[in-house]
């Protein structure tokens, strides 16, 4: 039966040769190479759940009065968008579950991307010839961050409305073009009616389309360049070792998809996320403490909280204090990330193509730098929740902020030094192991040719 179907398709599309290549494609065996797939499958879950939600969500800021099952908002004025979300949560069968799964999938999507980027960074997989995929991957991250922001902002609740205001203030603070740019993007001085409908269009169409195209390119380039491999016995820059796609890798990969879906469903079932009914509809007069963006933007939020209030005037023109942590810092950060392959090449003086990864300890400076940066981001992430920590622990937010302002310098430095030392230690141990292996090999009379990676 399957053979009949396969032959039907092949006689129209000439598939046998590409199918053979696909089935026999070799993928390296290591779990760290499947981290990108977690992100990929989270994106698939986002598309599936998002399509469901898009059937119910109404991205309009028209004023309506609520008359639904949630009695604490009965008779309250709200946007049509907010009302449609309440309807999804309380009136649509499985609506709340799908909505929560969608939001959890977004958190996991970006988390998996970060873990994946960390793996790429620490193993040097961004080196030639894979710089293009590094740039595509970073762009995917930026798009994912943006879409997450748009996604929770279109709900029209108090928490995300505050976030829209803050985002508008950040763009506003850009020197010279800030006011023009913020009015262009948000459609006026926030809060203004056109912002949510606009973000809805971006969130369900423009950005997912861009992500899909770049993702296809990303995977296509991996397919074409073939995957990198971990250093080890028999690993060279001229071969790729691992399992074939069919049957093992297919089973594992599809199994991973089901597990990603299962974890997201478990979270959607058991852990409440973004309970917009408790926040209430957006009211520009109201505000709440403990207002944070989703975790993947918390690094910018933390920077905004920790950065001191300095006024910089160029003549009579103000460069607001918000500009530096809110815009300059993230933009510079990503510029450095985009340029990183060149920086790495500068340090290592190595312009050769690599298909074998490097161990993190082989480049102690880069690894230490990367760990220091991650620690820096983590301190910012903690700083974004300083008022939540204050409430939970009973401490004063002023004290916590002071501690964090010290930690933001001390923690990355200490982390970098410790990691550097560990890498040097590991390198020495590896070198000693190598010497011993060479000695024993020479003793046994077998010489390993210099082309292969020497093993221990």
């Amino acid at each position, binding site marked *: 039966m399957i053979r009949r179907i396969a032959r039907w398709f092949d006689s129209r599309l000439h598939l046998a040769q590409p199918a053979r290549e696909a089935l026999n494609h070799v993928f390296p065996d290591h779990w760290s190479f499947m981290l990108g797939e977690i992100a990929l499958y989270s994106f698939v879950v986002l598309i599936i759940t998002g399509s469901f939600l898009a059937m119910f969500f109404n991205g309009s800021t028209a004023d309506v009065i609520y008359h639904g099952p949630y009695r604490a908002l009965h008779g309250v004025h709200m946007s049509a968008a907010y009302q449609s979300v309440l309807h999804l949560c309380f009136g649509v069968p499985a609506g709340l579950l799908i909505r929560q799964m969608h939001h959890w999938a977004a958190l996991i999507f970006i988390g998996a991307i970060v873990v994946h980027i960390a793996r790429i960074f620490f193993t040097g997989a961004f080196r030639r010839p894979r710089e293009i995929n590094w740039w595509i991957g970073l762009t995917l991250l930026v798009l994912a961050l943006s879409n997450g922001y748009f996604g929770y902002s279109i709900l029209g609740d108090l928490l995300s409305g505050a976030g829209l205001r803050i985002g508008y203030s950040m763009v506003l603070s850009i020197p010279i073009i800030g006011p023009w740019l913020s009015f262009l993007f948000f459609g006026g001085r926030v809060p203004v009616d056109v912002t949510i409908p606009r973000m809805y269009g971006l969130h369900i169409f423009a950005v997912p389309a861009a992500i899909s195209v770049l993702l296809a390119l990303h995977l296509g380039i991996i397919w074409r360049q073939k995957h990198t491999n971990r250093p080890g016995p028999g690993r060279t820059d001229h071969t790729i070792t691992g399992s074939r796609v069919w049957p*093992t890798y297919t089973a594992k990969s599809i199994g991973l998809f089901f597990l990603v879906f299962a974890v997201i469903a478990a979270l959607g079932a058991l852990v409440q996320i973004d*309970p917009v009914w408790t926040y209430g509809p957006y009211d520009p007069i109201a505000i709440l403490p403990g207002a944070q963006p989703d975790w993947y933007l918390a690094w910018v939020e933390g920077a905004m909280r920790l950065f001191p209030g300095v006024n910089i005037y160029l003549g009579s023109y103000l460069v607001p204090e918000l500009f530096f942590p809110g815009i300059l810092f993230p933009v510079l950060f990503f510029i450095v990330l985009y340029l990183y392959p060149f920086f790495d090449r500068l340090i290592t003086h190595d312009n050769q193509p690599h298909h074998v990864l490097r161990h993190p300890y082989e480049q102690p400076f880069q690894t230490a730098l990367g760990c220091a940066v991650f620690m820096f981001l983590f301190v910012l992430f903690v700083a974004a929740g300083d008022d939540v920590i204050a409430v939970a622990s009973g401490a004063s937010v002023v004290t916590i902020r002071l501690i964090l302002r010290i930690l933001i310098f001390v923690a990355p430095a200490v982390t970098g030094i410790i990691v550097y030392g560990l890498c040097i230690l590991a390198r020495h141990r590896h070198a000693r192991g190598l010497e011993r292996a060479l000695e024993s090999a020479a003793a046994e009379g077998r010489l390993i040719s210099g082309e292969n990676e020497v093993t221990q």
Partner: protein
Amino acid sequence: MMAVETGPGHMPSFVNVLSVPEIRAVSYYVTQHLAVIPLQGGDLAEGGTLFRAHCAACHRTAARGGALAFTGINAPSLVNYSPPLIAGAIRWGPGPMPAFPPSVISDEQLNSIVKYVTFVQHPPSPGGTPLGYYGPVAEGFAGWLGVLVLVIFTIWIEKGGRG
């Protein structure tokens, strides 16, 4: 009862003067016989709107408390507060909390707010555990837990089957 114990503002604390049963008796007397606010009626939804306009800025929309710029004092969680205590706090502004006289919040509005606070002390959480209503911070940690679980799954997937 809290006021007798902690002595908000310039009021002295009676913790070392009265025993706990005595404190309870005094509170009971005050709330049952001396409280002049009727605390009846009120509209839940209007109370919610008023709460978000006046109170949520310090106490959070879920009334779980918020951070102040003070050393040692935060806007407390309202989860364990009785209606008379809530009403009293609104009218008399204990400690760093501002007071809201009838010209700002009328008696009818006060009843609504109290009704809403009582509701939000045990709000419906149909989506699962609310993680203490701490918001995106707690959700971020839970999300990372999910990522960690998936990474562990990935290690299991790849490591297994090779003896």
